[in-house]
Each structure stands twice: as C-alpha cells, then as structure tokens.
C-alpha cells in the first residue's frame, strides 16, 4: 500500500486585508487610517495525498487553491493546523525538503531573461549541488522528454511562451524532485503546447512516481492528468475524491442523437416516453440516465428504424463550471 506523502490536518490561513473606499476622499482616508480586517482564506481543511498521486485542485478564482499550494511547499506559514510533506514541516524549509520539491507557476518565471535557458539550468544545478556531468545528463534527459534542443541556446527573451514554459519546467525539475506543485502550468499556452506539457507530466509521473499537485483552469489539464480532485470553495473543501465519480454525479445523463430513417420514425420515437432535448425533422436528441444507457440503446435499436446514432458526453467544462458555483457535493 502506498504511503501518504502529504498530510494536512485542520489547516487554516488568515490574512490581514486592507480595504479602501472609492474616490479621492477614500484614498486620503486610506492613507492616514488604513482599515484592515482579518480574512480567513483557508478554513479548517484536512486531506492526505499518497505517493505518486496526481491531484487536481479545483475552484473559482480566489477560492484558496494557490494559498493551499503555497502552504504545502512552505512559502507561507499556516495560521492554524498542521502540514506534513514527506515527513517535513514545509515552512521550516529544511534543505532536504527543498531538494525534494518544486513549484512551477504559469505566471511567474525564474529563468534569466537575457541569457539562454542552459545558463539558468547550470545555475540551478550548482544550487542543488549537482556536478557538471550529472547536470548535463539530466538536462539531456529532460530536454529529450520535453522535445527541446536548439531552444536551450537561445536567449529566453527570444523564445515563444510555449518554449519558455518547457524551459521553466526543465529548470524546475533539474534536481529530480519527488513532489511537484504546479500552479496554472498551461496558462496562456496554445493547444499543442498544452497537450505536450500534459504528455510530459504524465510521462514524468510514470517514470519517477512523482506526486503532482496541480491547479488549473483548463479542464483538459485536470481530466487528462488527475484521477482525484479536491474542490475548494471559499477556503473549504467541498469535494475530495475520484474525478469520474464527481462528473457522473454532477452530470447523471448522456445525450443520444438519433438519425431516424424518416420524420415519422422520429415522431414515433418522440412519443415513446424518452426525455427529448430537441428534434429537427428526422433527427432527435434524447437524454438518458447513465445507468440505463445500455437498455435504452437496445430498446431503440430493436424497435425503431434508425440510420445512425451518436452518444455525447456533456462538455466537461460545463460540468466543472457547476463545481465552481455549486456549494455541496454529497458523494
């Protein structure tokens, strides 16, 4: 049985937030007497993550996903509760712990802007105390996996966003960490670059059994990488479990588009008791519950004259969108 690599118990985080009224009067008032209030952004959350798991953190903007990641990697101190990551208390930032983790942020970069990425990689290699030969071996291995080659020798400022992100990944993984914290890693990337990045992360996870904690607003990142998701709503965990189960719960029906031989067949089908979404001439779309899909298909194929049919899953984005506005998931 795989051991827990991340253990979070009753974790909370509060920030002092200052607010300002609009206009000049508000600005002057804000300058002389700043009004601050304590805002609890993470509220008493608990979860565990097993070694090698890929877990997606879902939630609306400001829900607290990034704050959780920052507490897991030790950037910010928790206000209450405990966090253990590979047996360490993250905010102590012990050298052994830091050598074991990495944080990749889609909107921030660590590469040296005026120099080719290879210079940043070698700098990181010296920070992680790798010898030259080992550093070169790892750069070669990771650049092969990321499919970058010539880009290593071109100044960062001349690289495209996709090439830069791949280089950022390489810089962040040169020390071969066991735990990866990824905050919106595909932000701003085109579809191909997103796909390549996801493929790389899957391979990296397979090869190294690394644990990956991921936040992303691109649902494809979540659905193709994560079996498990943790939904964060206003600082609390509203769901923690299997992604497929969540999707089924939130969208218990499938849509079947049936192309009938004639319009009369379509009318006959419309009146046979199915829940009809829409109908145009000889085409009809019906909604069928997931658990009765086989029996419904048998019924349609045996009793109606049809030319073709398509089974459509509701768009994942639409379902996940519900997560961002829904409060409770009784799974």
């Amino acid at each position, binding site marked *: 049985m795989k051991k827990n690599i991340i253990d979070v118990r009753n974790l909370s985080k509060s*920030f002092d937030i200052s607010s300002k009224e609009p206009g000049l009067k508000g600005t002057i008032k804000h300058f002389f007497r700043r009004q601050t209030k304590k805002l609890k952004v993470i509220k008493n959350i608990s979860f565990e993550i097993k070694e090698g798991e890929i877990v997606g953190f879902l939630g609306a903007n400001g829900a607290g996903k*990034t704050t959780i990641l*920052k507490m897991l*990697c*030790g*950037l*910010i*101190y928790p206000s209450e509760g405990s966090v253990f990551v590979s047996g360490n208390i993250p905010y102590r*930032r012990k*050298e052994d712990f*830091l*050598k074991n*983790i*990495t*944080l990749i*942020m889609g*909107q*921030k*970069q*660590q590469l*040296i*802007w*005026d*120099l080719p990425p290879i*210079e*940043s990689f*070698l*700098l*990181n290699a*010296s*920070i*992680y*105390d790798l010898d030259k030969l080992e550093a070169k071996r790892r750069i070669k291995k990771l650049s092969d996996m990321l499919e970058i080659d010539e880009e290593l020798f071109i*100044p960062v400022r001349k690289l495209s966003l996709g090439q830069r992100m791949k280089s950022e990944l390489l810089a962040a993984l040169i020390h071969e960490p066991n735990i990866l914290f990824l*905050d*919106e890693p595909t932000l701003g990337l085109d579809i191909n670059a997103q796909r390549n990045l996801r493929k790389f992360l899957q391979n990296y996870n397979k090869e190294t059994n690394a644990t990956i904690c991921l936040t992303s607003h691109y649902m494809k990142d979540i659905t193709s990488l994560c079996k498990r998701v943790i939904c964060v709503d206003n600082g609390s965990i509203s769901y923690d479990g299997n992604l497929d189960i969540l999707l089924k719960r939130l969208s218990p029906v499938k849509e079947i588009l049936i192309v009938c031989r004639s319009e009369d067949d379509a009318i006959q089908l419309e009146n046979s008791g199915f829940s009809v979404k829409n109908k145009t001439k000889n085409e009809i779309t019906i909604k069928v519950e997931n658990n009765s899909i086989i029996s419904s298909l048998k019924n349609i194929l045996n009793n109606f004259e049809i030319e073709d049919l398509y089974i459509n899953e509701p768009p994942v984005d639409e379902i996940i969108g519900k997560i961002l506005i829904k409060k409770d998931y009784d799974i």
Partner: protein
Amino acid sequence: MNQRKYLKVFTKFLHTSLASEFEYKTNILIDLITAILSLIGSIFLLSIFFTNNVRLGGWQFEEALIIQAIYTILNGITNTWFNPNLTEIVKHIREGTLDFVLLKPIDSQFFISFKKINPSGFLEIILGFCLLLFCIRINQINLNLSFLTLSLITIICSICILYSLWFFISTTTIWFVKTWNATEVLRSFLYIGRFPLNSFSFTLRIFFSIFIPIAFITTIPSEVFLGISQFWKIFLEIIVASVFLITSRKFWLFALKFYSSASS
C-alpha cells in the same frame, strides 16, 4: 554551511551576471564613462572646498582625497553588488518571485544579495584603489603589515555597515511593499561620506555617527590610512559592523515569517 557549494554558486552568479551584462555592450560603455566622469567631478568639487589651502575640519585636500578614494571604492561595491541586488528585493516581493528564491536549498539572504553583479562597478573599485595608492604616495604613508591589516578591517567593516543598512531597509518591503525612496535617501546620505566628519557641526556629527553611521563608513578607514585613528574608534567600528550584520540577518529571518507572497 557547504562552503564549496556557496563558492560554486557565487562563481555562477558572477558568470551569469557578466554574460547578461555583456549582451548590452553600449550600456557597459556608458556606465564606464559615467564612473570616470563621476570621479573627476567629485575630485573637482572637493578641490573647490579646499581652494587656497583651506583646511576643512582639520583636514587638508590631500588627506581628504583618501576619504574620496574610500568613498569611490564603497560606491563601486554599492554599484556592483548592493544596487543591482538589494533594489531587486522590492521587485521580488511585489511580483512574488521571491517564491523561487525561498524554495531553493540555499540561504535566501545570500541568494538575493549576490545574484546579480554589475561589472561597470568594478571600474569604480579599481579607480578608487588607484586614487588610494596615489593618496598613499602624496601623503607619504608608510605601508606595513599592521597598517594594511587595520585598513582592510575597517574597509570590510564599512562594507558590512553599508550592506546591513541597505538590506535592513529593503527587508521592510515585506510589510510596506514599496520602499524605493528609503534606499534613495540612504544613497544621498552616503554622498555625505565624501567629506571629513569633523567638517560638520556637532549635531550633524552625532546624527551621522549614531542614527545613520556614515561617519564609520568612510572617516574611520581614512583616519587609519593617515595614522590618526584611535584604537577605540576601530574597535567601535568592528562592534557597530557586527551588530548591524547580525541585526539585519535576524530581521530578515523574522520578516520572512510575514511574507505572504504575491497573488497569482
């Protein structure tokens, strides 16, 4: 602390900074010309104060030139290391890139204090040393081991005081986010260090000795060069430098507890 690793990282910092700066050749040339013109301008300004063999606070022009030389060396060090790195702390905190620094298995203060190097500051350091050698010759100073040791100790202490002051101010960014002005004020005070402390009124002397110890930064090393410094002053400078260094270090570690990282 793994000294070999830190030396290796420092060498890499040096290498990457030089490589980054050499991408912009014209900028380096302009910086070099500025350094030369600035030194010429400062000496000219100083010579105006000493026209007609006037003594300023008991100092002759040739003696005051030593203060200028030490100021030039310190300004070179400021431009080489402190300015590119310590002003960057504000940026790191505002933009949240301090996250990357804090997650590296290396001392964060070392990383943010030495990551960047501005090579044009080297010229100022060299010019300062050349002027110092010239001053040693015209003031007929005898070079011996104890003199050189004391000079080196006081200059190192000056660097430590200056660094700590600057680092301390930059650290407050963790709470106040924007503190550009404070570091600019510190730089302006440093200009005062080009003149002998005795040339100021009693109140200002106290101010520049206690509140902003500019006096320790240039005047005491210069007095050592002229052989007119007393041991208690050197001892006091060592104490002040140590207190400043330790305080800035403790303050940084304390401040990090309040780092909330920029929002994404």
